[in-house]
């Protein structure tokens, strides 16, 4: 018995040693999916530590030592902002800037590479900055941390270039999911803001990483949503007008905020040398001055949103808080104080919503809900306007409130905010900031809306270049010469379409087959058919094999709608085709 155990142990050790010399144990796709879970776990753990660190820092500064003395409240944000900026600028340059833009840069520029020093720097700098009361949020840093961890793990797992590119968004979803405690929102945000094209594999990875990160986060921090949300009711359908108004105001203010923040950013962008380090200190001082009287502007502002949700502020105060937070956040963002914009935008939206809702509660001619309900709906409006991510903002409020009733007002308010913001300003804040930093990152919004040209837009309608199979060769040749075309289609009942070239016809005529039908005289080649809704990209792939293609109806594949050639495609793009080029020459 003892001998058997020893033998088994020996074999196990030998197997383990041999294992080290073998290659990878699974395929690329499985590895990518497994890695997504690992990324989610690591990101979740990091974000939990990040969250706790911010709290500890906050208790030790603005909520602890400084809570009873005005001078401490005045100085902590300045000291923290300055120190965090110094740390990021001097020792962790990869930690500077927006996490969303860094992730997009990894995806579109650096083949998924995010330096791990960025993760460390972002963790430390954002902890100091947010913990000392600067009005920034932890979600964007968490997103970058997720990307950085994902990138490191991707390198560790030796992923190929294509998978490495997609690994940063997977990590971003994990980071933001753990920070917000909202898995669906995280997935949607990455889809709306970071990744323009994706397939089922990428979507699966993003979902897996987000879910595993949220599970880890909840394991440690509990499954409470960001805010404790009171029961939501739509008291009266006329309230939808008020909600639309909230969307209108939030959309307008988000456009103004973007303009304000980028203009300050442009002005301070020219400052060089040691004076740069003074900018976050000055911004922090302004935050401190305001925070002495209005401590609600400190930090991410979750507590203030919670109070607003429970009707603890009057509407005038809510609007004032929105204004103060807008100014302080824009200033801190512009001067580069480490931290994210997510939480502040939620704060501003909530306060705008609550302010307008409170006003309506007093003066609206019909019965309305209390301001708390409007705070909840308002949360996502400013976010939708600023980040141009309407689905994220809608689902975020839905996930936070866990109420189906809220969907209608949230949709109304958020979509209006988005439309107003887009009408007033084309580029979003992050896009403009990236351009200011010298990065021309693609806008997912623009990519989404840039509809590809379809076959319908390029094809030549009708059957001018199609001959029945009984057409004599000489007739077909004459007509092709008249039209000045080199290829044509032969239609054969129940067999589809075949293509012929003018040279084939000339050969047949020269061989004395001019009077015979096309079907008899030639050996024609069958072609595949296209449909009008197909993209030109798909059509081009087929046009590489066939010079002319029939376009038929999806309802009746035997019904010819038109023909498509490479010249037609060129024409639809507005460029000269080979034939035209020859003519030009």
């Amino acid at each position, binding site marked *: 018995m003892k001998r058997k155990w020893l033998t088994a142990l020996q074999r196990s050790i030998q197997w383990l040693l041999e*294992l*080290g010399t*073998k*290659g*990878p*144990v*699974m395929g*690329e796709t499985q*590895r990518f999916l497994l890695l997504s879970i*690992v990324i989610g*776990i*690591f990101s979740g*753990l*990091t974000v*939990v*530590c990040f969250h*706790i660190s911010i*709290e*500890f820092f906050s*208790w030790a500064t603005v909520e602890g030592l400084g809570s009873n003395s005005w001078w401490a409240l005045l100085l902590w944000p300045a000291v923290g902002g300055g120190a965090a900026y110094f740390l990021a600028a001097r020792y962790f340059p990869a930690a500077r800037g927006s996490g969303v833009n860094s992730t997009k840069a990894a995806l579109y520029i650096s*083949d998924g590479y995010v330096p791990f020093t960025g993760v460390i720097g972002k963790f430390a700098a954002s902890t100091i900055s947010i913990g000392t009361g600067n009005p920034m949020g932890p979600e964007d840093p968490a997103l970058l941390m997720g990307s950085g961890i994902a990138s490191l*793990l991707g390198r*560790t*797992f*030796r*992923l*190929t*270039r294509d998978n*490495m590119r997609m690994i940063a968004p997977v990590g971003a979803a994990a980071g933001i999911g753990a920070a917000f405690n909202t898995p669906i929102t995280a997935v949607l945000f990455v889809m709306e803001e970071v990744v323009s094209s994706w397939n089922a594999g990428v979507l699966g990875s993003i979902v897996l990483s987000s879910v595993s990160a949220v599970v880890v986060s909840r394991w*440690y*921090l*509990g499954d*409470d949503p960001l805010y*404790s*949300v*009171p*029961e939501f009711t739509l008291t009266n359908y006329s309230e939808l007008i008020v909600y639309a108004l909230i969307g209108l105001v939030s959309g307008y203010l988000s456009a103004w905020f973007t303009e304000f923040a980028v203009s300050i950013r442009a002005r301070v962008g020219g400052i060089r040398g040691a004076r740069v380090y003074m900018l976050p200190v000055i911004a922090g001082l302004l935050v401190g001055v305001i925070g002495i009287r209005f401590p609600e502007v400190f930090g991410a502002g979750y*507590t203030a949103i*919670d*109070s607003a*949700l*429970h*009707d*603890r502020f009057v509407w005038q105060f809510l609007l004032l808080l929105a204004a103060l937070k807008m100014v302080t956040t824009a200033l801190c963002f512009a001067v580069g104080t480490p931290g994210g914009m997510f939480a502040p935008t939620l704060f501003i939206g909530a306060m705008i919503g609550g302010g307008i809702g409170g006003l309506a509660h007093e003066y609206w001619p019909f019965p309305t809900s*209390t301001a*708390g309900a409007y705070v909840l709906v308002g949360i996502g409006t400013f976010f939708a306007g600023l980040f141009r991510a309407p689905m994220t903002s809608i689902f975020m409020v839905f996930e936070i409130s866990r109420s189906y009733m809220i969907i209608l007002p949230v949709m109304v308010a958020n979509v209006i905010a988005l439309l107003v913001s887009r009408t007033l300003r084309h580029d979003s804040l992050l896009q403009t900031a990236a351009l200011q930093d010298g990065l021309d990152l693609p806008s997912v919004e623009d990519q989404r809306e840039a509809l590809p040209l379809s076959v319908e837009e390029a094809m030549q309608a009708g059957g001018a270049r199609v001959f029945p199979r009984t057409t004599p060769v000489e007739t077909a040749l004459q007509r092709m010469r008249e039209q000045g075309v080199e290829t044509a289609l032969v239609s054969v009942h129940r067999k589809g379409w075949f293509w012929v070239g003018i040279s084939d016809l000339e050969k047949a005529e020269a061989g004395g087959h001019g009077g015979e039908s096309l079907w008899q005289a030639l050996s024609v080649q069958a072609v595949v058919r296209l449909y009008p809704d197909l993209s030109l990209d798909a059509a081009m792939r087929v046009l590489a094999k066939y010079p002319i293609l029939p376009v038929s109806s999806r309802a009746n594949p035997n019904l010819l709608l038109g023909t498509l050639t490479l010249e037609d495609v060129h024409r639809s793009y507005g460029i000269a085709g080979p034939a035209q080029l020859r003519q030009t020459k």
Partner: protein
Amino acid sequence: MDPRYFCLICRRPTRGAGEECPHCKSRQVARVGATPQRLAIVFCVMLALFVATGYYNRAFNNERQQRAEEHFRLGRTLADYGYFDAAIKHFGDALVYNRGDFDYRMGLTLALYQSGRYQEVEPQLLELRAANATQASVNRMLARLAAQNGRIEEAVQSYRTAIYGRWDQNPEQNRVETRLELVDLLESEGETLQLVGELLSLLREEPANDELLRRAGLLFLDAGAAGEAIRVLSPMAEGAPDDAELHGALGRAYFSTAQYGLSRMELRRALAVRPNPDLSELLVESDAVVSLDPNYRRVERSEPRITQRARYRRSALVLRRTVDYVNSCYGPVGKELVGPAAPRSERAESALAAAAAVLADTRVPADSEEATERNMGLASDLWSLRAEACTNIWDHDDALERVLEATAR
């Protein structure tokens, strides 16, 4: 290209191990995927991070809980001394540290309620209810707020949830108090049916409380449940001869249930203690019925027994008043006639003729009991004609009506 190998510099596929990368000419080529050693390292780091985060989180939770408890204690002390604004701040701070704690939020809610900040109370209560739907005190407060704001249905529903919900302290007493609040609300809103139901439930729960019984009895009476009022009040009245309110209420209850003798007795007792014009009027009505009713049975020993002759005379009187009443309906001289008199039906003619024949004989017959029955039967027949005859008459003979109704019953 061998997809199993890639360049570590440009991360593109290469021709194989040891081959030069065709894209960047690097020779740093590696096999795609992590080796088991790397996997093991990642796994170990993950475990270590799990453990470290666990410790960090525990420290964080301890500190957070400690801070929350401190604020909560302070808040409670301040609330006990009536410093509600300061207490609210501390309860709020406690919730910042531990948002999901029921006691903290309850403390805040109570402080807000006691300081009169009702608008802020409701969202807190709704959240408490969402966390624990059967918490009775929360539902009671919600009911009170709903009642204050005129949302009666919601208030009743919340009161009911509170009554059948979970009370942390003195459940019986709290249930009775809550039901009494609900009863008050239903009474003020005139919801009679629900009110009676609640009162019956109340008495089932608290059968021995005299104060409660008296209140319930009076409310039963106001709600039109006179039988229940008698059931509740009569045992109490036996031991309280000087309680004018109780005897007066019983008098009214007996009157409502057509027990005019008992009503007269109770009303006399009540009026002997304290004069009351309403009760006096009721006593007059009771007296009128008692003195007219041939079937009256004495309720006190001190009352004289009614002889058979007296019964017959009373029945004759009832019949005469009925005939007069019906004739006044048909007669052209009806003083309150405002329209054409209804034509007399054959049935009316015969009934009136029979009554006239009976009344013409003023002697008391030998078999007076049977004659009494006959008179009352005739009177009842005639009385039933008033539906067709007396459409235009406004003047009522209340005593006669009550006697005949009692006879019909």
